[in-house]
């Protein structure tokens, strides 16, 4: 079973709650995903729609909340959001996100490391969203991150595990769980991440914007499980030369 900061999870698929067409579709898709951990964001209350409250929609007994610091452009803003999340009853777990450039939404490694150091001191359980940089992953672990969350591709692009070789190095060096986050656009992408040994995947856009988000959530759940099972079963070696699957002996009769 997956364990992060002493908490165990049966499902290795984490799901985001953004971009769903309605609360009902979100709730049904989250149920279908089998996810136990879901991400949420913090924003100003829309004073024109005071009843729009995700906390009334999601069952906190069923879903463990992982608040994110999306929108933060530097470490100070991320820390402000983190403290607001904790004060909002979101607990002390955090998906730390620092994205200064709205065009690429790529994470700022220096500000992310700085915020990780500060937030760990302030007793947060920090899961930093990061570019797939193996050295940064080591630095974040040293700073006390409880998991690392390298991106597969930029947020919301659905382009898949473009960073596979870097993620493989991160996994090989990891002392904390590796959660591949962002850019996974198809169940096969999630399966690939799990096959190479990722501990979990986080998916939002690919499920939320699918033609049938509930069906897609189920598909991601199966792919995540299949990929994990394949990893545990041990994939066969890749080779350059062909190697017959059928025995080469016993063919003498073809010459007779």
């Amino acid at each position, binding site marked *: 079973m997956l364990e992060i900061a002493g908490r165990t999870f049966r499902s290795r698929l984490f799901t985001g709650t953004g*971009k769903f067409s309605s609360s009902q579709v979100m709730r049904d898709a989250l149920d279908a995903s089998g996810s136990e951990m879901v991400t949420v*964001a913090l924003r100003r*209350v829309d004073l024109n729609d005071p009843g729009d409250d995700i906390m009334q929609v999601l069952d906190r007994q069923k879903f463990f*909340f992982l608040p994110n610091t999306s929108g933060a452009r530097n470490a100070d803003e991320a820390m402000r959001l983190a403290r607001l999340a904790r004060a909002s009853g979101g607990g002390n777990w955090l998906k730390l996100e620092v994205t200064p450039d709205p065009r690429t939404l790529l994470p700022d490694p220096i500000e992310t490391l700085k915020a990780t150091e500060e937030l760990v001191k302030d007793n947060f359980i920090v899961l930093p969203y990061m570019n797939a940089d193996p050295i940064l992953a080591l630095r974040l672990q040293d700073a006390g991150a409880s998991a690392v969350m390298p991106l597969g591709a930029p947020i919301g692009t659905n382009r898949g595990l473009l960073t596979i070789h870097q993620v493989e190095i991160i996994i090989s060096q990891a002392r904390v769980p590796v959660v591949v986050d962002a850019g996974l656009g198809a169940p096969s992408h999630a399966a690939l991440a799990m096959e190479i040994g990722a501990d979990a995947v986080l998916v939002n856009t690919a499920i939320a914007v699918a033609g049938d988000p509930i069906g897609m959530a189920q598909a991601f759940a199966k792919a995540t499980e299949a990929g994990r099972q394949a990893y545990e079963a041990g994939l066969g070696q890749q080779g350059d030369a062909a190697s017959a699957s059928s025995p080469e002996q016993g063919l003498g009769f073809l010459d007779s």
Partner: protein
Amino acid sequence: MNVIINGEKTEIAPETTVEDHLKHLDLNLDTVVVEADGLILKQEEYATLMLKDGMVLELIRFIGGG
């Protein structure tokens, strides 16, 4: 008096507490966090803290996100 709430200048009656105003806005006190002049309030402060002219309030809560 005027209070800036979520970036909007808002006319508030004197002797209004944070809790009074949250209730007036029909907000659930358990799921909204309040920052007053940059400081996060504890929920028990909502009932006692009076809004003051020129105060900047941020009313924040969880929404869907990835």
